[in-house]
């Protein structure tokens, strides 16, 4: 049966943790198809990433290393994924649905004349998957009927792959002709933060429009730091310029599923709920008892953030002190 190829994302020579979820998906798919799992790393100076990927329990790791591939471009990366897919004789090509994966995989699918399952949350069969639609209000079961199945994987629904015992063999593949088709990477204005990545944090503390202004998010940040969590925000707060856009949680921002999600002064618009409903425990703090966020919250507290945040700092501080 067909083999499985998973594209492993790297940024500046570092394997992105988000990719580990796609590796888990790949292992499950290989079990389903009876084929073997190959991992693919693309970039410049990525031999270390390939070596790291070799610890994840795949049958083999292929890497493509070329100075012209230093910065990701869908135009140059997609043909390489296609080349690897053909050389490996795969029936499944997958990637985690990050900004990278979502940009890359449909182009790959078009080049392979393959159907694509987007944002897969569960595997039903070798070509049948479950995925959310309509802001998470519907789960669809879909069937991809092409010989090759392309898929983007929702990170929060597949546990990160763990390091396995023996290292997989690593082989370098030739990039083939590299043609950017007139596209050019210019720059990346990266938002720097000492906090954990939003999509990987165990605790997320998010603020909404009710925080009113940027400096009030400093109070939220203190709480995030106290619990070692990430800070998020609603679309309304991002649109109002209170915090950078990359903090946005929701249908059009990032999808998170931490152990604990604390929504502070967030009303709970459908598109926000779509990005955090999968969290294990949801806490809502809002002064409006009718706010829709309370309908998905495990624990709701009707009060203002001005009152709640300092008290949370004190109470959690006490708890931390007692745990020491």
């Amino acid at each position, binding site marked *: 049966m067909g083999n499985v190829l998973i594209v492993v994302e790297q940024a500046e020579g570092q394997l992105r943790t988000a990719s580990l979820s796609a590796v888990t998906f790949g292992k499950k798919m290989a079990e389903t198809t009876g084929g073997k799992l190959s991992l693919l790393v693309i970039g410049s100076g990525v031999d270390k990433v390939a070596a790291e990927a070799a610890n994840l329990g795949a049958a083999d790791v292929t890497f493509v290393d070329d100075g012209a591939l230093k910065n990701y471009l869908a135009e140059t990366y997609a043909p390489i994924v296609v080349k690897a897919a053909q050389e490996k004789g795969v029936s499944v090509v997958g990637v985690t649905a990050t900004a990278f994966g979502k940009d890359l995989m*449909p182009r790959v699918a078009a080049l392979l004349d393959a159907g694509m399952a987007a944002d897969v949350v569960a595997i039903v069969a070798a070509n049948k998957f479950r995925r959310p639609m309509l802001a998470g209000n519907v789960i669809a079961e879909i*069937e991809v009927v092409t010989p090759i199945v392309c898929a983007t994987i929702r990170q929060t629904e597949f546990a990160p792959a763990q390091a396995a015992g023996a290292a997989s063999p690593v082989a370098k593949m030739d990039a083939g002709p590299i043609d950017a088709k007139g*596209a*050019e990477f210019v720059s990346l204005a990266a938002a720097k933060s000492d906090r954990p990545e939003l999509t990987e944090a165990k605790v997320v503390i998010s603020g909404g429009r009710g925080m009113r202004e940027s400096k009030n998010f400093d109070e939220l940040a203190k709480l995030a730091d106290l619990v070692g969590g990430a800070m998020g925000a609603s679309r309304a707060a991002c649109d109002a310029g209170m915090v950078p856009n990359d903090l946005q949680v929701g249908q059009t921002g990032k999808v998170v599923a931490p152990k604990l999600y604390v929504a502070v002064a967030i009303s709970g618009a459908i598109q926000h709920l779509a990005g955090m409903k999968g969290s294990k425990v949801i806490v809502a703090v809002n002064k409006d008892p009718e706010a829709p966020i309370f309908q998905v919250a495990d624990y709701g507290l009707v009060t203002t953030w001005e009152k709640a945040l300092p008290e949370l700092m004190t109470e959690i501080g006490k708890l931390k002190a007692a745990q020491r």
Partner: protein
Amino acid sequence: MKILVTAKRVPDPEQKVKLKGAVLDVSAVNWQLNQFDEYAVETALRLTENASSTGAGARAPEDQVIVCGIGPKDVQQQLRQTLAMGADKAILVDGADDALDADVVARTLQKIVEKEKPDLVLMGKLAADSESNDAGQRLAGLLGWPQATFACTVEITDGGKALSVGREVDAGMETKKVRLPAVVTVDLRIVAPHAVKNGKTASDHAYAEGPRYASLKGIMAAKKKTIEETTLAALGVTPTLKVKTIALEAPPARKAGIKVQSVEELVQKLHNEAKVL
């Protein structure tokens, strides 16, 4: 610059989703233009007009905005809306919603592109119903054109030969330059006051936040504009699906939560009951 914009109709996202068995119950659905597509239309208008504080200026004859929708006849309503906003012409490709997947859509758009020869295809980054986020990238792949997805800023550069696009990516904002012709899919922030720069409109011009409303004049003018009708067959597109939807179901409901009376109680419950602190 000639721009082709895509327009899909979707159920009003604010309406409660109803299922009839394993399919969507659309009997009471309020259809509307996909928000991201509306933003794409706004982007196309901003890219082609010479706007000033007194409003949108006239477009040069070579600057055109054509909107294409694929779907049942009713999509005329959403296309008419884009014409009222200021688009020049619309194309409606007849197709039932369940006869389409991202591949059929991309292959159809490829045919339209070959016919209309636009310099740029602008699309919403995703449709609010299927949320697949793939038709634009597929189209770019089929055409062999460069692509810039999740655009939050766009600027015409190189004397109209290229676009500099700000893209919202996981790590922050990436700037990518694409030679024209290209496919660009737009994100939410593309309708911010200074997000679009075309070299004609003053670079410090501040647009009102969001897509424009159709003026009365625009609505009257739209009645005289053309909606060309065609079919998948006439375009030579075989509607063979690569992805089939088997069934829809409601997601598992979260069990009802409780209201706590104090922060102290909340922290105790998170520690002792939920065991997450």
